[in-house]
């Protein structure tokens, strides 16, 4: 029996190299597939992707499996540590609200803010940057000078100012963060566009009579996506941090809605008597930020043309 398996093994190992060689000879890999393979070879990035997916699934579906609601009060368990029988997996706060549900609901908000605000900055940045780079000359220098001026403004404080005037709404946070983060995106896209528009495929497109709009849309923007995606991935943790920062200070997400920043602020006040209150949101936030940073770094290594 053993001998048979060993025999099979040697046969298999003799077969495998041939197959790989044949594979390589036949199938060519597109740059995106190569980048994907490089990313999969990066252990930290793969672990981060898996963890992040788990966190996201937990945040989206987790609250459905708990008997408690976001703002329901358990009068028998106020400020109790994690306890499985009463289904308070992360414990309760001093008002008797379940922290498992509140942490996960907070995660929904944080992840949603991260994705939406990044998407806003992604769209504005790509459109603005590609137009500035493609137009060139005076238009370009005026548009980029405007970005330079905005860059020097202390934006964090303007966002806080906005919350003072327009009240503290979550939509304001989306818009404000997206409006700040597009600046770097626009610079990256513009730099890429400047070099791309000199390339012969753009010239060929122009010769065939393609309009400026379709050249930008079909030829310029798809080719700027590599560095832009890397930057976007690194923007998500910044945005999540920004939202938690505002919520921590009491200027972001408001009660009864929850957010990691709000929960950390509440927990920090009762840290000595109830350390579990600060621990669960803090760990979730830290793990999410770590994962996003590692994925961003991994993507940069995978997509960076310098390494090719």
């Amino acid at each position, binding site marked *: 029996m053993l001998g048979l398996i060993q025999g099979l093994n040697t046969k298999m190992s003799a077969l495998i190299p041939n197959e790989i060689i044949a594979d390589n000879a036949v199938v060519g890999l597109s740059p995106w597939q190569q980048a994907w393979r490089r990313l999969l070879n990066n252990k930290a990035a793969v672990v981060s992707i898996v963890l992040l997916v788990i966190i996201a699934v937990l945040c989206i579906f987790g609250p459905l499996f708990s008997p408690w609601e976001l703002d329901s009060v358990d009068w028998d368990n106020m400020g109790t540590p994690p306890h499985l029988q009463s289904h308070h997996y992360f414990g309760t706060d001093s008002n008797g609200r379940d922290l498992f549900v509140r942490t996960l609901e907070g995660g929904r908000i944080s992840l949603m803010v991260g994705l939406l605000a990044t998407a806003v900055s992604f769209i504005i940045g790509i459109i603005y940057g590609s137009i500035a780079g493609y137009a060139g000359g005076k238009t370009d220098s005026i548009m980029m000078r405007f970005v330079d001026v905005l860059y020097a403004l202390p934006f964090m404080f303007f966002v806080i100012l906005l919350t003072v005037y327009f009240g503290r709404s979550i939509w304001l946070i989306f818009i404000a963060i997206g409006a700040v983060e597009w600046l770097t995106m626009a610079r990256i896209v513009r730099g890429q566009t400047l070099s791309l528009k000199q390339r012969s495929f753009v010239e060929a497109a122009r010769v065939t009579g393609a309009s400026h709009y379709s050249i930008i849309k079909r030829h310029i923007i798809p080719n700027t996506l590599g560095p832009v995606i890397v930057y976007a991935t690194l923007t998500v943790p910044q945005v999540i941090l920004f939202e938690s920062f505002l919520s921590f*200070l009491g200027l972001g997400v408001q009660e009864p809605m929850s957010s990691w920043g709000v929960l950390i602020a509440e927990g920090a006040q009762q840290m000595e008597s109830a350390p579990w209150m600060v621990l669960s949101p803090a760990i979730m936030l*830290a793990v999410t930020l770590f994962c996003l940073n590692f994925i961003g770094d991994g993507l940069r290594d995978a997509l960076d043309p310098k390494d090719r």
Partner: protein
Amino acid sequence: MLSYFAKRIASSIPTLFIIITIAFFMIRLAPGGPFDSERPVPAEIAANLEKVYHLNDPLPVQYGYYLLNVLKGDFGPSFKYHDFTVSELIAQGFPVSIQLGLLAILLSLMIGVLLGVIAALRQNSAIDYLVMGLAMTGITIPNFVMAPILILLFGVFWGLLPTSGWGELKHMVLPVIVLSLPQIATVARMTRASLIETLNMPYIRTAKAKGLPTRLILSRHASRATLLPILSWLGPATAAIITGSVVVETIFGLPGIGRHFINGALNRDYTLVMGVVVFYGFLIILMNLLVDLLYAWLDPRIKY
């Protein structure tokens, strides 16, 4: 060189101007005026007040007065703190904030450069990975998470340091550490990358080839080229430390500008919030300007 200095100074003026203009129009658009309190002021007094604050003049004239006042350093009276002008509140908080900020910058520079050099000299070793892993942690964990953790450890469990209060050196230890941790991490990463790049330069190879010990190569040949990029860190670091000080002053209960700012934002104290924003904006622009000028002055490879 001089013309570059002049140009650079001139280019930072529009930014400041934009900040002041936004500030002015936000005050005007804000719902509710300083005299709309629960108890109405007698009509004659209201008229007098409006005259003093030029509220009856057209908007451009009011804007002119505001600009003039801000240039004189007068941000108007606070909406919520009676008997205080915004400038007085800023002046009160400034010594606390500037001490914290300067100490944090100094600490980040010293420890960050040290860690970066150690990591770069032992590139891809266990020590390198350890330092860079710690740096990643420092950058990732936000200050409002780090502060409670440190308070819990040093203040509550071990009872080594006070968790709030102001006046003695021991009160500054935890706030300064919380403020500088992300900056230490940033400086360490920058130093490492910059030193590795410098050590690959031909002139360093020459120095090695003629038999100089590593210590001398680092101090005589590599130090300037390595440390110059770190200078440019000072600009963003100022902005980051100012933002961080808002959190740190709130958590540790320190009487700095950051706490006034947050209280102002929570109480809708428009003039205070506005004054602090203009003041912070001025500080950040000034720091960026100084860094650029220093850079041009120190780096002989840059010609203007």
